[in-house]
């Protein structure tokens, strides 16, 4: 089993590889086309290498368990801004999610709508490319425009451009208080109108989802501020302030235990209800909305082509769980050529997670 414990060892493995390699972190985010090749584990590259709470900066090796990072941050009342999901329930996986896997899949939860996605928090990367070269980009400061921004490019590239070895993050204070306003029994149209009103208010909403007929709106911050904003939102939108477990939205708990394919769509929020109806028209068994209506999740019978529901709606679809359909949205010719060109530069032998992204 290949599980290097140093970056140099990893670089040697890649440089001397005779065939394709399948990059494995915790094996808890199994999104993408299946990949052939020898498993190359990253869990041996583990540990937080730098944490400066006063500078809102954390640097960790790629194989560090997400749970370890979250615990260390919590001890200083801080957190990762982008609320990474736990996909284990969805895939029936039992491993430890690694920070490298989070970054490789740009895993971003409900707070993405306000705090940005994983890529917005990644301020530096170190990785080994397909020829075994150790490369770095960005650093450990949150403002950095020195050269091209490969930290963004690497985030979400699913191990097809290089194997991440170390990642720097901008982190944020954890809030003193959280409140969720719940509005019951709304249609998708009503829900998106409610969420748009909330997100277009001055109240700094950082969660807006619609699950099982309930619309949930979240505010976080200092206690007095949270109480004030939650009260103002209730005045504006109706509903009541209740305890709500946002991990159910983040981890798609309702769908995880049910059989069927799971699709994920990113569209502009006002297109959400129309897409939701089209998805049901194509056989979707259930539909949920996050990100103010712009992130649409659908549970579907196995093999159904829900991507077709997009029609002329701008955006993209990903098959998160299931087979029988292309996982990622087909790209326009121009974009496809650029992506293939980039891949040839980063991994000219085409050995890293070959075919993962289709």
């Amino acid at each position, binding site marked *: 089993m290949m599980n290097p414990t140093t970056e140099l060892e990893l670089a040697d493995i890649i440089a001397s590889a005779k065939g394709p390699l399948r990059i494995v972190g915790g094996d808890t985010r199994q999104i993408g086309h299946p990949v052939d090749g020898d498993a190359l584990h990253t869990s041996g590259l583990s540990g937080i290498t730098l944490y400066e709470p006063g500078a809102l900066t954390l640097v960790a090796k790629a194989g560090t368990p997400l749970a370890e990072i979250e615990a260390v941050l919590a001890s200083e009342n801080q957190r990762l801004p982008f609320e990474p999901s736990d996909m284990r329930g969805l895939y029936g996986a039992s491993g430890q999610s690694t920070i490298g896997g989070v970054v490789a899949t740009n895993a971003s939860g409900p707070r993405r709508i306000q705090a940005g996605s994983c890529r917005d928090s990644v301020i530096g990367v170190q990785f080994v490319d397909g020829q075994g070269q150790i490369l770095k980009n960005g650093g450990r400061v949150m*403002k950095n425009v020195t050269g091209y921004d490969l930290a963004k490019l690497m985030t979400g590239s699913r191990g097809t451009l290089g194997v991440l070895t170390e990642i720097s993050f901008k982190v944020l*204070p954890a809030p003193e208080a959280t409140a969720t306003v719940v509005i019951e029994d709304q249609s998708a149209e009503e829900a998106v109108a409610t969420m748009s009103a909330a997100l277009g208010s001055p109240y700094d909403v950082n969660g807006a989802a619609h699950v099982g007929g309930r619309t949930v709106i979240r505010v976080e911050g200092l206690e007095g501020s949270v109480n004030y904003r939650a009260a103002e939102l209730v005045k504006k939108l109706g509903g009541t302030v209740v305890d709500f477990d946002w991990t159910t939205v983040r981890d798609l708990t309702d769908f995880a235990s049910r059989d069927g394919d799971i699709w994920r769509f990113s569209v502009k929020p006002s297109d959400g209800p129309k897409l939701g109806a089209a998805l049901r028209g194509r056989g979707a068994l259930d539909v949920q909305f996050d990100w103010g209506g712009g992130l649409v999740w659908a549970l579907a019978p196995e093999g159904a082509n829900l991507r077709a529901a997009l029609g002329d709606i701008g955006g993209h679809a990903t098959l998160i769980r299931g087979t029988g359909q292309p996982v990622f949205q087909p790209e326009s010719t121009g974009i496809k050529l650029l992506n293939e060109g980039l891949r040839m530069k980063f991994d000219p032998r085409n050995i890293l997670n070959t075919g993962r992204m289709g």
Partner: protein
Amino acid sequence: MDLPQPNSEIIARKPQIVALLQAILPDDAVIYDEHEVKAYECDALSAYRCPPLIVVLPSTTEEVAAVLKVCHVEGVPVVPRGSGTSLAGGALPTADSVVLGVSKLSKVLETNYEDRYIRVQSGRTNLSVTGAVEALDFFYAPDPSSQLACAIAGNIAMNSGGAHCLKYGVTTNNLLGVKMVTMEGEVLDIGGSHLDAAGYDLLGLICGSEGQLGVVTEATLRILHKPEGARPVLIGYDSNEVAGACVSDIIKAGVLPVAIEFMDRPVIRAAEAFVHAGYPDVEALLIVEVEGSETEIAEQLALITEIAKRHNPVELRESQSAEESAAIWKGRKAAFGAMGQINDYMCLDGTIPVSQLPFVLGRITELSEEYGLAVGNVFHAGDGNMHPLILYNANKPGDLELCEKMGAEILKLCVEVGGCLTGEHGVGIEKRDLMSTQYTDADIEIQLGIKDVFDAKWLLNPAKVFPLTLTESRRA
């Protein structure tokens, strides 16, 4: 600083190139008179000037595509230009280049408050993007100091920041999509009004690529509702160390101000002499601004002033009115102008880990004495983005070179302590030759490889960002 030798063969073909451009653009969109092109000879890094061969001012994406196709076929370098406010020489022409100005592309194409975005042509100025949505109390968050003049195209090219990015992020965090024309003249739509692109994050790659990968003609930008109010507090300390520790404690306490600005004594004195803001004569001055309703502002300021008091401030002034807020910001906003009253200056923007602040400020003082050049420091302290202003006399032979040498030492210092060469201005020509202090040849080579993919003939803004010796074999 070395500038590349222009290609005389291209210069000799000027009449033919002008004719080809005139065939695809309206008459007034092609400028080739040698006196008229001088208006484009520099950007805000005005120590370096070079009139371009030709200037084109297209009005549509189609015209931009047509220009790039001609230049691609003819092998003519193209220097894209927004409003020419780059402090790094990002829009500095070469004598054999066509400057492609996007100033005529200034329309708002769509505003969508329900989905919270605006789609604009890229020549539109930063402040007028907010201007287009502020009637409904919305705004576009990135706010570089030059926001009255600078174009969104330039903001995207440099991934511009501003004073408020501690809370709202920089351009790349507020950009949803672009329409971009490649050097070959192909029009690409990347991203859109939805969040997070499918596939590789090309949008993240293009933002901050300094006009080397394509010419952005349209941008979809995230807009936000304005906060109910904002109020600053002014805190003075008698040492930089203590001020730095206060910044760190505020951040650790869990309150995230919208801005934390830091000024040192030379800047405080210059600003005071220039605009009489009523600043105390202290070693370090912090301006911390928070946002929200009256209740929320009071809650945050109570926490911040409590932390500030723990560090025994010489001065602590909480604004009680709009007038007092304006007075607190007055000196900060005039800081660059105030330093400019004293002498010519060079403005750096190296970024450092906040914990290294006292050490770096100490070293800058030593360098200042060593070189005999005065330095003032004003910067975004919350994110470690420094702005050392080195004073020099442009009319004194050798002074600019001395200033550049000292600037290079400061930037190397920023890299040594774990920071970077540039936090928000970009590399341009200014920091091009310092790239090797931050990156290995291999780190740079992969970036050159990316440019190969987008611009195989290396015609777009070719002599920028990377050390000339490393790009020589690729450039035309």
